């Protein structure tokens, strides 16, 4: 125990400042009313859905929770069920085999809900594109509010996308 405490003390607080929302990322203008968004502000629950990514985006979403970025410190946390979620964070081109699962996850998420598409593949289909096995971009399957490009997008870019979605054009 002594060595753990010593290591914690030596590490100190690593958390850095959070990014600001970026209106350029918004795909749909103000889908949710401002009064609804104020409920999300400061307490948001996210369900991550990997719809067919290469797992690069998942690595960076994991990194959003590390002490440097400390997403949970902003009141934003990942939950185990879409029924508990306010937002879906969707990665990858949507594979045909995940199409139904993604739609069902979207339907299981209670209104009002937000969708953020992560990564070049989620935004455009990326290098995998559309084919017999891939439906391409996320917005081909479910409505998308904010898109975050990058291969993979950095944790700061992902956080910026999430914060843009819940800022509702206020800031």
């Amino acid at each position: 125990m002594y060595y753990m405490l010593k290591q914690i003390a030596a590490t100190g607080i690593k958390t850095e400042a959070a990014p600001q929302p970026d209106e350029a990322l918004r795909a749909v203008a103000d889908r949710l009313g401002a009064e609804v968004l104020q409920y999300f502000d400061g307490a948001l629950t996210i369900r991550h859905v990997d719809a067919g990514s290469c797992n690069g985006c998942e690595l960076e979403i994991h990194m959003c929770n590390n002490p440097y970025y400390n997403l949970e410190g902003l009141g934003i946390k990942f939950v185990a069920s879409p029924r508990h979620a306010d937002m879906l964070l969707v990665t990858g081109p949507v594979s045909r085999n995940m199409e139904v699962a993604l739609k069902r996850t979207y339907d299981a998420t209670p209104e009002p809900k937000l969708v953020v598409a992560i990564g070049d593949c989620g935004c455009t289909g990326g290098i995998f594109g559309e084919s017999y096995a891939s439906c391409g971009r996320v917005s081909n399957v479910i409505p998308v509010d904010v898109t975050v490009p990058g291969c993979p997008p950095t944790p700061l870019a992902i956080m910026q996308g999430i914060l843009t979605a819940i800022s509702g054009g206020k800031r």
Partner: protein
Amino acid sequence: MGPVHAGIIEPGHFRFSIVGETVLRLEQRLGYKHKGIEKRFEGMTLAEGARLAGRVSGDSTVAYAWAYAMAVESAAGVIPPPRALWLRALLLERERVANHLGDLGYLGNDAALAFGLAQFMCLKEDWLRANQAVFGHRYLMDAIVPGGVARDLAPDAMGGLRYEMDALEATVTSLKSIYDEHAGLQDRFIQCGNVAPALAARLGLTGVAGRASGQASDLRVEHPSIPFRELEVRMATHRNGDVAARVTVRFEEIFESLRLCRLILDRLALGEPVIEVPLPPAGAFGVGWVEGWRGEVFVALETGPEGRIRRCHPHDPSWQNWPLLEHAVIGNIVPDFPLINKSFNLSYSGQDL
């Protein structure tokens, strides 16, 4: 359970048969991430193919990019300059360290030691930031191209890398002793998710998981390419085949990779980091075989007319290892499944293609 799981994880369907808390049987149904990668390769230029190969499984992007580049180079009959090969080895070992750091953090977390996750994630973040600063990408995507490496290592960056490795080694050493001494953690790790060496040999368990189950196999040792031939890699092995063994192998491989990275920086050849690869004729074959962090990555390539790809098959070590996970969980309790799964940390994307 699944394909959409309770966590930030790739999709797969797991069907458990349980009695009380004990798992009688696990059936894995994969294929949800099939997005037609092999079909996508067809007709691509060799340069486009390099980008796609680096995205078969994002966590192994260096291993895939190297294996693909090796396949292209063997089809074209060229050998990249020594500096390129040494830099590729440096990138491969950096990828290994990054992934092992992440896994060790999550293995601590899955056994309820959140301290371990926080510590290892800080180390991984520092490591990724150095990748970004020195090589231009946090996960080193597109750093390896057919003919060499896309970005040379600046001489003034070497001091910083050495300093960073010394700091990392010191911290990982103290974290290892904390993990080793932690009774609660070891209670979860030891005798959990067993794969006996005989079973591992029969079903062809490979890579990190294989080496933890007595399968002394590592391409860097058995079929060393340049520069591993000169570096004399010391293989990490264990015979217990449980989660604890897979943790130990990961710790040992981090220390060994740091030793290799230092040697590479000491002996890095001078010269060009990349050469032009002539277009291979139609119908030329090439293969690439690289020991990635998870295990051996294999790429087979056939060229078509105008230097385009006719067929390309990337093969992930997860393909061999997934069936072993079904065996490893038998007789364990359901709450240990995430721990066992993480100790293998197999790729869904690389398996489903």
